[in-house]
């Protein structure tokens, strides 16, 4: 057994768990619910074992290091953190209805990186700058924080969709747009994966084959389809609004959950930034250099600080803070992925 087989196993289990959580929600069948939790837990155990195994494999290759050093490994850890935080949450609050958010997000994180052909999955030796114990603390704290923000985002999107009483409500539109984006990523990942497994002649990258296609016709059709899918969700979502709302915990609880997750994520992100600064100071003698990655982590921090103040002191609730959580998550994604591909800097491991 090697680590990548285990990673694939956990990925499949998270997908199964996603379906199971949906069935649980729709029929309120406790047995299915318990099953969903068990499958998620099993996936988590498999993923943990896979990370451990990959760690060992790196030692076997002669340059052992904790598997937290490149895009692939950090994305796997992100997925792992989302599931960990969710499982703790489920145990503490004895409520599994949010599994329907956490399981697909956990799946998406690991699956999307597994099929991305331009991302190396190889275990690579570390350059001297990365050979530091600070790497471990920095990555673990940052990603646990990111995971908490991810769950807050999922809950906030749900809130925005369920809280709307009118289809034209701008908050509802933001919620739906986020949902459709996530669902598109989810569907594209599964499709890509299926095509890759079959080994078909279809271009295995949906995005490259549609929005980024060389043919303007395909491009236009893709955009029209995207708008169409959005319009469909937007329209149908409002029709079944009541029934949807009945599936989930009340709005007050969702609002509270989103906030609690930010409260967990914020100190962790703070620790992530502080340990990053300490590491930079130890490696280069500069704790802060306004490198794009650092700056974007600060931007993320500022957005969540604004979230907390808006809620704690200015008394914002519900839709307003939910939108801040969505914006904050967009900043998280940009800090983590966008900076590597769009901007340049110290953390440019993703562009390799």
């Amino acid at each position, binding site marked *: 057994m090697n680590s990548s087989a285990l990673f694939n196993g956990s990925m499949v289990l998270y997908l199964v768990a996603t379906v199971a959580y949906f069935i649980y929600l729709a029929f309120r069948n406790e047995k299915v619910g318990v099953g969903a939790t068990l499958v998620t837990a099993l996936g988590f155990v498999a993923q943990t074992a896979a990370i451990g195994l990959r760690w060992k494999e790196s030692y076997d290759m002669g*340059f052992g290091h904790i598997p937290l050093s490149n895009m692939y490994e950090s994305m796997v850890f992100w997925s792992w953190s989302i599931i960990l935080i969710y499982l703790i949450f489920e145990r503490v609050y004895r409520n599994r209805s949010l599994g329907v958010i956490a399981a697909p997000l956990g799946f998406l994180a690991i699956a999307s990186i597994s099929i991305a052909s331009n991302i190396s999955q190889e275990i690579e*030796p570390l*350059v*001297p*700058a990365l*050979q*530091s114990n*600070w790497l471990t603390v920095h990555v673990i704290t940052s990603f646990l924080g990111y995971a908490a923000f991810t769950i807050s985002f999922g809950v906030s999107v749900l809130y925005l969709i369920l809280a709307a009483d009118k289809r034209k409500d701008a908050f509802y539109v933001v919620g739906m747009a986020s949902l459709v984006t996530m669902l598109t990523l989810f569907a594209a990942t599964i499709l890509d994966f299926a095509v890759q497994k079959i080994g078909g002649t279809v271009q295995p990258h949906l995005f490259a084959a549609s929005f980024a296609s060389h043919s303007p016709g395909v491009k236009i059709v893709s955009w029209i389809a995207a708008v169409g899918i959005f319009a469909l969700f937007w329209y149908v979502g409002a029709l079944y609004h009541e029934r949807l709302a009945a599936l989930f915990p009340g709005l*007050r609880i969702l609002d*509270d959950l989103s*906030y*609690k997750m930010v*409260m967990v994520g*914020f*100190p962790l992100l*703070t*620790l992530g930034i*502080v340990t990053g*600064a*300490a590491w930079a*100071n*130890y*490696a*280069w*003698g*500069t*704790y*802060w*250099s*306004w*490198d*794009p990655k650092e*700056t*974007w982590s*600060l*931007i993320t921090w*500022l*957005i969540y*600080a*604004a979230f907390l*103040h*808006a*809620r*704690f*002191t*200015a008394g914002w609730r519900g839709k307003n803070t939910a939108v801040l959580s969505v914006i904050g998550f967009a*900043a998280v994604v940009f800090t983590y992925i966008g*900076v590597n591909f769009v*901007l*340049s800097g110290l953390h440019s491991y993703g562009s390799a």
Partner: protein
Amino acid sequence: MQGESPPVVDEKQPPPPAEAASAVVTKSWYDPLLKFFSSVHVAVITLIILAAISIIGTVLQQKNIGDVNDNMRLFQQFFGDAGRAQRAFDISEKIGFFHLYQTWYFYALLSLLSTSLIVCSLRRLPQTWKIMARPKVELEESGFKASPNRRTLTLPLSRAEAAATVVAALSKGGFGKRESERDGALYLFGQKGAYSRLGIYVTHFSIIMIFIGGILGSLYGFKAYMQITEGDTSDQIMMRGDEGRTATLPFKVRCDDFQVEYYPGGQRPKDYFSRLTVIDAGQETLHERIEVNSPLQYKGIWFYQSSFGDTGRGLKVSIRAVDPKTGAAHDLVFTGTDILDVPGTGVRVQMQRIFPDFMQDEMGRPTTRSNQPKNPVAAVQVLLPDGTSKLTYLFKHRPDLKTVAGLPVDLTFADFSSIQYTGLQVVYDPGVWVIWLGCAFMVIGLWFAFFSSHRRVWVRLREDGGATAVVLAGNANKNRERFTEEFERLGDAIEAAGGARS
């Protein structure tokens, strides 16, 4: 956590002292200013503007980090027209977009944030302190009624006995106790975790500390670079961000050795380190091996391994020649383009050229990518006994690669060395400890602000025909669900200990 339930008492922000005073005294000139800076909206908007403006500096290359001229390319891509791109470039340069984080308006925003932070904290602190230190012990009937957690018990005990039971339960639960007597009723009050209310002030204070640390570093510290060739001693440093200004260290540093190791394949450095000796007042005071993530510190000045390179001097190449007939091996050591004999074979070898970091250019000609010995290749001329000669390339990392077949001796590239230099980042930052202290305060403050709560319990005991009527009320400022459970346990404990009949 922050539910919508009405608070029991005194949770609402009272009118700030300045406004209360303004009823009597005429408004002073700084009142509007104070009002502005103590507004949470101003603070939140400042946070958002800071976040938004910071984005510019991540898109455009900044001085001292990247190459500002890259921005010209970016503008050209964006505008598609050289004239407009040039104009955009000039304007951006003028308004400081290429050194955004050092502009006056960025500093102004940071100052606005600090001021708002200080004013907000100072105006709210007295009220918080009052809640913590001088709690209201005698809760009114309306307060008991409005409490989110409430319990009424009748204990078959005298009031003094009942009070003792309650006090015992409170102290067992970790609640500090105060009491007061009014209108024939005994009031007890217990609280714990009051300090958690200070968490947010500690966090705010820590941000100011970090700013102070940064200011101290930029006023009294320096960042510089020094380059020392192996065997040399130097005290000259080049200041960063200050075009070519040099300075002299109060002591000297000697580079005894520099080594770099590469991972197999040759392109990725695995490790590089320098052996340094500090010479202070003519005395060798410190020997240390430094590498990335392991700096040297002497008299508050830190030396970080930052770069390295080849001086191109003192080149030494060793080629191993094996005679396949006898198996005899000879090491030929070249220090230039000399010609050396391979003893007993009549073959002579001439060093033609060394490529420290071999590559082929577009035309397929051999060349070197850099001066770093990442992939050393030697071009040697093998002079055969019959007067002919053959040019062959020897790859240090690929001894199996032979470019010419049928040579009477087997040649391999054994070793390559030359005099290298080490590049050191030299930093003196007296503010860095303030920064770390600030960071520690921030994490501790956040912990208390988010994960511990101020929990309070009010009790009223009244004699009621031989028994004692006990009313309990309680609230927590955070984590209310958890507190409700705690409150119920507390009530149960009193009930059990006092032998209540409900």
